[in-house]
C-alpha cells in the first residue's frame, strides 16, 4: 500500500480494504527500516499514531469518516504540535515541547489524519539543502549522496521514499517547491494568507506560507481542502471562501494561457532542465493550451531583495529565543548578557547566525534606507512584474530550480551559490503568489520539477493545470530505486 497515493488510500480505507491501523503500521515499519539512513524524521510518534489510527478506524466503522480520516501524514517540525517536541531543526528548541497545536496541525487532526512523526528540516527553515539542521542532513532517496533540497527536506524525503503518503511543509523562498522538485514530488506553496501561519514557527513573517508535499496534485487538493481558509488568530490570513479544490481539478487545459518568462532561461539554468520544461510545455500545447513569451524585467532583483527582507524579519523573529522562558539556556550564566550571548551562541547554528547578523545590519540606523527600505521598493517592482504578466496569461511556467539535486556538502562552503538555487522561487514569495512544483522528467537520473505560478488565490487553477498534466504523464509515479 506504500506506493499508493493519498486519494487511493482514502478510497481503500472507506472500502475497508485495510484499516488505518494496518496502514499506519506499514508506514511505521518503513520508517523504522529506511529512516536510519535517510534521517528524514526528528521525531517518530509511534504510540500516538497507533492510538489515533485505531480511533480513526472506529470512526470509519461508524460511518462518521471524512475524506481524510485515518490517513497517515507527517508534519515538518516547524509546526507546533501539542505535547510533542517541536524543534524547528535547531538545538535552540531541542528541549521544546509545544503546549499548543498550530492551526494547520489542529485542522488536519480534526479532519482525522494520523500523525506519524515530525520531519527534519533546515534550522529555522533557513537553507536549501537540509544541511543546516541540528539533527544532521537528510539524504535524497534518489541518490543518497545528494541533498533532498530544503528547507522541507525531511518532508520531501519521507514522501519520496514512501515512508508517508503526504507531508506538510513551509515555503519562505522555495522550501516546499525546491525539495519537491529534487525528489520527484508535487509541492504546493499557496498564496500568502491562504493558510494560517498560527503555530508555524516564524522565519520571515511576510514570506512564510504553509503548504503540502504529495505525490499528485489530486492529493494536494485533498489536503488543501482541510488546511486552507481564514483563521482569526492570524491577522494576515485572508477571509475569503475556499473553493472545492478536488472538483476544480477537472478544469481542462484547453484555452489555458501559459506565460514563459524569458529571464528564467539564461545561463544560470542547466540547459537539460530547460529542455525538460520545453518538453512539458509540448504536452500542454497538445491539450489546447497556448504558450506566450513574457518578461519579468525586475526578476534579477529577487534574490538580493529576498536576502534583505528575509534576514531582516528573521533577526527580529528569532529575538524571542533568549534562554529566558523556553529553549536552550547556557549552563551557569554569570549575568544577563552572558545568558543571552551564550544561550544564543550555543543554540543557533552558523546559517541562522549569518542571517540574524545580516538582518540586524540592514535594519540598523544609517543602513535602513539603503537596504531594508530599498528592498521594499524592489519587492514592489517584482510584484508588479508578476501582476502585469498575469494580466496577459493565466499561469507562468518555468523550472523550479536551475539544476537537479546537488551533492551533499557541495554548496555548504559558499552561501551565495546555495542561495542562487532558489533563484526561480524567491520572487514568488516576495510577490505572495501561489506556486506549485510538479515532476517533469529526469536529468542524470535525478528528478527535475516544473514550476507553475498563478495569480492570488488561484490555487485551483494551478492544481488543475498540474492534475491534467499528471493525467497525461507518468513522471510522478516513478519511485526511487530501493524504495519500491
Amino acid at each position, binding site marked *: 500500500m506504500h506506493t499508493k497515493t493519498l486519494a487511493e488510500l482514502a478510497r481503500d480505507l472507506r472500502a475497508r480494504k485495510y484499516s488505518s491501523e494496518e496502514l499506519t503500521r506499514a508506514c511505521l515499519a518503513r520508517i523504522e527500516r529506511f529512516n536510519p539512513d535517510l534521517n528524514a524524521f526528528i521525531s517518530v510518534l509511534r504510540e500516538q499514531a497507533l492510538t489515533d489510527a485505531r480511533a480513526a478506524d472506529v470512526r470509519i466503522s461508524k460511518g462518521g469518516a471524512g475524506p481524510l480520516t485515518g490517513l497517515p501524514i507527517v508534519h515538518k517540525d516547524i*509546526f*507546533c504540535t501539542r505535547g510533542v517536541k*517541536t524543534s*524547528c531543526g535547531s538545538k535552540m*528548541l531541542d528541549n*521544546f515541547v*509545544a*503546549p*499548543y497545536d*498550530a492551526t494547520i496541525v489542529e485542522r488536519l487532526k480534526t479532519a482525522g489524519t494520523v500523525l506519524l512523526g515530525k520531519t527534519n528540516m533546515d534550522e529555522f527553515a533557513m537553507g536549501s539543502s537540509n544541511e543546516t539542521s541540528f539533527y544532521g542532513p537528510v539524504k535524497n532517496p534518489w541518490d543518497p549522496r545528494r541533498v533532498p533540497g530544503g528547507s522541507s527536506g525531511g518532508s520531501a524525503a519521507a514522501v519520496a521514499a514512501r515512508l508517508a503518503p503526504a507531508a506538510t511543509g513551509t515555503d519562505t523562498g522555495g522550501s516546499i517547491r525546491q525539495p519537491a522538485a529534487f525528489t520527484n514530488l508535487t509541492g504546493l506553496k499557496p498564496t500568502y494568507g491562504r493558510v494560517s*501561519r*498560527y*503555530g*508555524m*514557527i*516564524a522565519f*520571515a*513573517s*511576510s514570506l512564510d506560507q504553509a503548504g503540502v508535499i504529495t505525490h499528485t496534485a489530486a492529493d494536494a487538493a485533498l489536503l488543501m481542502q482541510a488546511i486552507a481558509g481564514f483563521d*482569526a*488568530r*492570524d*491577522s*494576515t490570513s485572508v477571509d475569503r471562501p475556499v473553493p472545492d479544490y478536488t472538483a476544480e481539478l477537472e478544469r481542462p487545459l484547453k484555452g489555458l494561457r501559459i506565460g514563459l518568462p524569458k529571464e528564467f532561461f539564461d545561463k544560470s539554468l542547466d540547459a537539460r532542465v530547460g529542455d525538460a520544461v520545453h518538453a512539458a510545455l509540448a504536452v500542454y500545447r497538445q491539450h489546447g493550451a497556448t504558450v506566450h513569451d513574457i518578461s519579468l524585467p525586475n526578476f534579477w532583483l529577487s534574490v538580493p531583495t529576498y536576502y534583505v527582507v528575509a534576514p*531582516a*524579519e528573521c*533577526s*527580529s523573529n*528569532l*529575538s*524571542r*529565543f*533568549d534562554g*529566558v*522562558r*523556553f529553549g536552550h539556556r547556557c549552563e551557569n550564566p554569570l549575568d*544577563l548578557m552572558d545568558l*543571552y550571548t551564550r544561550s544564543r551562541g550555543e543554540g543557533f547554528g552558523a546559517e541562522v547566525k549569518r542571517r540574524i547578523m545580516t538582518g*540586524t545590519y540592514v*535594519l*540598523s*540606523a544609517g543602513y*535602513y534606507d539603503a537596504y*531594508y527600505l530599498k528592498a521594499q521598493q524592489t519587492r514592489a517592482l517584482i510584484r508588479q512584474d508578476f501582476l502585469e504578466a498575469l494580466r496577459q496569461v493565466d499561469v507562468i511556467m518555468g523550472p523550479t530550480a536551475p539544476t537537479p539535486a546537488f551533492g551533499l556538502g557541495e554548496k555548504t562552503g559558499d552561501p551565495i551559490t546555495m542561495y542562487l538555487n532558489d533563484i526561480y522561487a524567491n520572487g514568488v514569495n516576495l510577490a505572495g503568489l501561489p506556486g506549485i512544483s510538479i515532476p517533469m522528467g529526469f536529468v542524470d537520473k535525478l528528478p527535475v520539477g516544473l514550476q507553475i505560478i498563478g495569480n492570488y488565490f488561484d490555487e485551483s487553477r494551478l492544481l488543475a493545470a498540474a492534475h491534467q498534466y499528471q493525467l497525461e504523464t507518468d513522471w510522478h509515479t516513478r519511485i526511487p530505486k530501493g524504495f519500491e
Partner: protein
Amino acid sequence: MEWETVIGLEIHAQLATRSKIFSGASTAFGAPPNTQACLVDLGYPGVLPVLNGAAVRMAVKFGLAIGARIAPRSVFARKNYFYPDLPKGYQISQYELPVVSNGSVEIETEAGGSKRIGVTRAHLEEDAGKSLHEDFKGMSGIDLNRAGTPLLEIVSEPDMRSAKEAVAYMKKIHSLVRYLEICDGNMQEGSFRCDANVSVRRKGETKFGTRCELKNINSFRFVERAINHEVQRQIELIEGGGRVAQETRLYDPDRNETRSMRSKEEANDYRYFPDPDLLPLEIAPAFIAEVKKTLPELPDQKKTRLMQQYGLSAYDAGALIASRELADYYETVAKTAGVEPKLAANWIMGELSAALNKDNLEVTASPVSAAMLAGMLKRIQDNTISGKLAKEVFEAMWAGEGDADAVISKKGLRQITDASAIEKIIEDVMSGNPGQLAAYRSGKDKLFAFFVGQVMKATQGKANPQQVNELLLKKLKG
C-alpha cells in the same frame, strides 16, 4: 542671566480594555505573577498578535477629543531590544505612522490666562512585563501579567515653559482620559505614567537647548519637583561652564534628584520596521463618525456650560469639572429646587472636598450623597439652620447619622427665628451685664460683638445670626 525652561511630556495612558492589545488575556491589575499571560504574551514560538478593536476605538476617541487628525492608515512597527521582561525581544508600537497626530489641549496658566499645548502624536503600543529584583537571592523575577497591556503614548510638543505648566498639561490629559473613560488614571498602579523632556535656554534664544529625558515621574507632585530639580541642575551646569549631555535620567523621589541612566551613545538602536504579522490599521470615516457620537461632554465644554447655566465663576467651574464624577455630583445638587447654585459650589469645593480628602475617598463613595447635601442646603436657604449649624449637620451626615432633616430634629438644631423669643433673650443678657451695657452706650462700640456672643451662647448658637444682629442693634441703643 535669565533662563527659559522648555518641556515636552510623553504620557503613557493604559487603556481600559478588558483584554490585552494583541491577545485575549485579562488586563486586570493585581493578579498573582504570570497568571494573566497567555502564550501570545509569553512570546511563544509560532504565536501571532491580533489587534484588539476596543483599543483602537479608545485611541480614536482620544484623538477626536483633542481635535487631532485620525490617520486613515497607520502602521504597527517593531521596536527591537533585548530585555527579560520583553518576551518577544521587540515591543509592538507605532513609529512612522501613528493613529493620532496634530491635536492640542488648552491649559490655564498661573497668570490666569489660557495656553494651547500641542499634542504631536498619540500612538498605540503594548506594555512590557515587570522585572522584580528583590526577593530572588541574586536572581531576578519576571512577571509578565502586564506584558501586552494596551498603552496610548501621548507625545506633546515642547510647548511648556515651566514645571507648573507641565503639571497643568498632565492634569488636563489625566482629566480628559478619565472623562473619555479610556483610562482609569490610577497613577499608583501605573495606569498613567509620564516621562519629561527638559531643556533650558537663555531668554530670547530661539534654538532649543540640549534636552534630558526624565523617567519614572509618576505623580503630579513628582513631575513638578523633578522638572524643577532638573532645570536647576542644567542651569548650574551651564553657568559653571559645563554642557548638558543628551541622556536619559531617572528621578529618585526619595532623594529628590535625577541620576543618569544612559547617555545618547549608550541608547539602543531599536531597528524599527513595520511588523509583518499585523496589517496596516485602516480606519474608515464611518468608524470615526460612529466614535464621535459616543464622545461625552468634554471638560472645557462642561466648564463653559456650568458658568453659563449656573452663573459660576471660571475658578469655581474649573474646580468642579476636575472629574466627571465631581461635576455630576455638583449638577445633581445645583439642579435641586430651592438650592442656590453658588452655595452648592461653595459647599462642594469647601466642606465636601475637605472631608473627601481627609478620608481619602472618591466623590462617588461620599457618605453624603448629592441628594443629602441638597437637602441640607435647602434648610440653610429656608432659614431652618444657619451656615454655622449646617457644618454641624454636615459632620453628622458624614458620620452616618441620617439626612439633614433627621439630624436637625434629633439634635434640636433648628434655628430660633422667632423675633419675640430672641428679644426676650437679648433683654436677659442686657440685664445680666449692666457694666458692659453702660460702657457700650458710652461709646465702646466694640462691645457689640460681646453681646452677640452672649446671645448665641444663651441659645446654644441656634438664634438666627442676622436677626440677632438687627434686634441687638435696636435694643442696645435703648
